């Protein structure tokens, strides 16, 4: 069995044993479901508090689904950063990583297995969340074609994976796990703001993927710059992965 696969399975087993495989998807599922459900009951909630319900426009199905996506980008991202901040740093700190790295294991397999583990878990979590949203949206409102659901989801997930990769990279570089999560989320926030402010110069920005994903739901099209942002985000992820491997190797062999 290849070393990468072996380490990947270890990551999977570990995140099962420490219940990350339960509670991360659960948080995303709750985020996803709560959105259409609260929207459905909103008129009653408003009425009971004395506000005329017809003053508030009822969102369309696709708007509800787009809103769910944006929730994964805030609360969801926070959960992901907090769960993955120690993914490399904690093992290095405790010394358990030594047990892996004294065996004939390359830093590349080691890091790629970590990344794959994060990726599978993240995709499963947003996938579950969005399926939940879709299910309740279809029941409570008009139905949304599945094609829009999964394409928008993939585009949005790429943004989450990008931030995940930054977390991984920082985890290879830094000791303080709190700092790792803080900087990852900071990068996400700053990118999102800059991309809005400098709309024309930031066409390449990974955070454009969030807008593109909503566009897919609302209009069926991600917009002209979507593919540029997708290509560059994939390139950034690849570069960050290469950087993580180098950082991990340096961290071990130099100090």
């Amino acid at each position, binding site marked *: 069995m290849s070393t990468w696969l072996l380490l990947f399975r*270890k990551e999977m087993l570990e995140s099962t044993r420490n219940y990350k495989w339960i509670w991360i998807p659960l948080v995303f599922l709750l985020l996803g479901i709560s959105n259409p459900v609260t929207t459905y009951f909103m008129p009653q909630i408003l009425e009971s508090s004395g506000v005329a319900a017809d003053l508030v426009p009822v969102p369309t199905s696709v708007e509800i689904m787009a809103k769910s996506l944006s929730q994964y980008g805030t609360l969801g991202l926070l959960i992901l950063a907090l769960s993955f901040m120690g993914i490399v740093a904690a093992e290095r700190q405790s010394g358990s990583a*030594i047990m892996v*790295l004294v*065996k004939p294991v390359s830093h590349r397999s080691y890091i790629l297995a970590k990344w794959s583990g994060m990726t599978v878990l993240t995709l499963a979590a947003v996938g579950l969340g969005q399926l939940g949203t879709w299910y309740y949206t279809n029941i409570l409102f008009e139905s949304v074609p599945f094609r829009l659901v999964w394409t928008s989801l993939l585009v949005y997930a790429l943004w989450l994976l990008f931030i995940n990769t930054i977390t991984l990279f920082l985890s290879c570089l830094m000791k303080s796990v709190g700092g790792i999560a803080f900087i990852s989320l900071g990068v996400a926030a700053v990118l999102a703001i800059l991309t809005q402010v400098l709309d024309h110069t930031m066409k390449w920005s990974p955070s454009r993927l969030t807008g593109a994903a909503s566009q897919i739901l609302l209009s069926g099209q991600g917009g002209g710059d979507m593919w540029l942002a997708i290509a560059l985000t994939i390139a950034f992820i690849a570069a960050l992965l290469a950087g993580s491997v180098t950082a991990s190797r340096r961290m*071990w*062999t130099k100090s």
Partner: protein
Amino acid sequence: MNLLEVGGLTKRFGANAAVDGLSFAISQGRCMALLGPNGAGKTTTLKMLSGLLEPSSGTIRFIGEARADIRESIGYLPQYPSFFNWMSGKEFLEFTAKLARIPAKEAASRAKELLERVGLKDAAKRKISGYSGGMKQRLGLAQAVIHRPKLLILDEPVSALDPQGRREVMELLKEMKRETTILFSTHILHDAEEISDDVMIMDRGHIVVEGDLQQLMRDHGKPQIRIKVGNADPAWVQGLRDRPFVREFEFALGLITLQVTNLHEARESLFREFVDQGLEIEGFEMGQTTLEDLFMKAVQA
């Protein structure tokens, strides 16, 4: 035949040289103790040998080792081993076996065999988080030898253990000594004397003394007599330093330590004095200066 040859091995952390120009060789099948006080550079040296740390300069050469990755030929137990505590002992050993490229089926049987050997058979299915310090150290030993390494590198394998755990690990080391070449570090002399063939004493990044333990004892072992007297006359005690056969004299806590030129001559002469002066001798011991004296001297120099 040499298994490992090290030349000019140096590791600098900033301006500090933790290991400074180490050159030595380890012979196949021998057990070498790397001795030295805390901060001598033992851990740094062992980490470089096991491929975890890159030397600032110098060479490490495995003789007749064609494998691209030297880690395949090395087993390593860190000074403070840390495990994946959510795994069971069995899971952990199978995992490390597979990392060492042992096929799955063989990995399982090898793990089983080693768990039994290190006395963890009954705890095999329990989580490592519940293991005692001694159990963890034995598990660490098992993972280090799982792939039958040519060289077993152990960093202070018994230093942190209680006497019982220390005993168990020492017995295991004695067994493993028969199967592979061992390099282990310790700051406790007794450990080195108990199982090593060769010793290397390090201090502040340098080798102070190195060689065959027996040979070193012979070369550095000076005939020595220790006397404990109940009713010693201080004048007589102090007068001992002027005897022709006494080379070095020490008197502390009622114990006289003499390094002498000739044991027999010294004994004859001293016994006569005991009788003539009616001294109450509570203890009389003849022997050689130990590795400890050598160690203390080397480290203080």
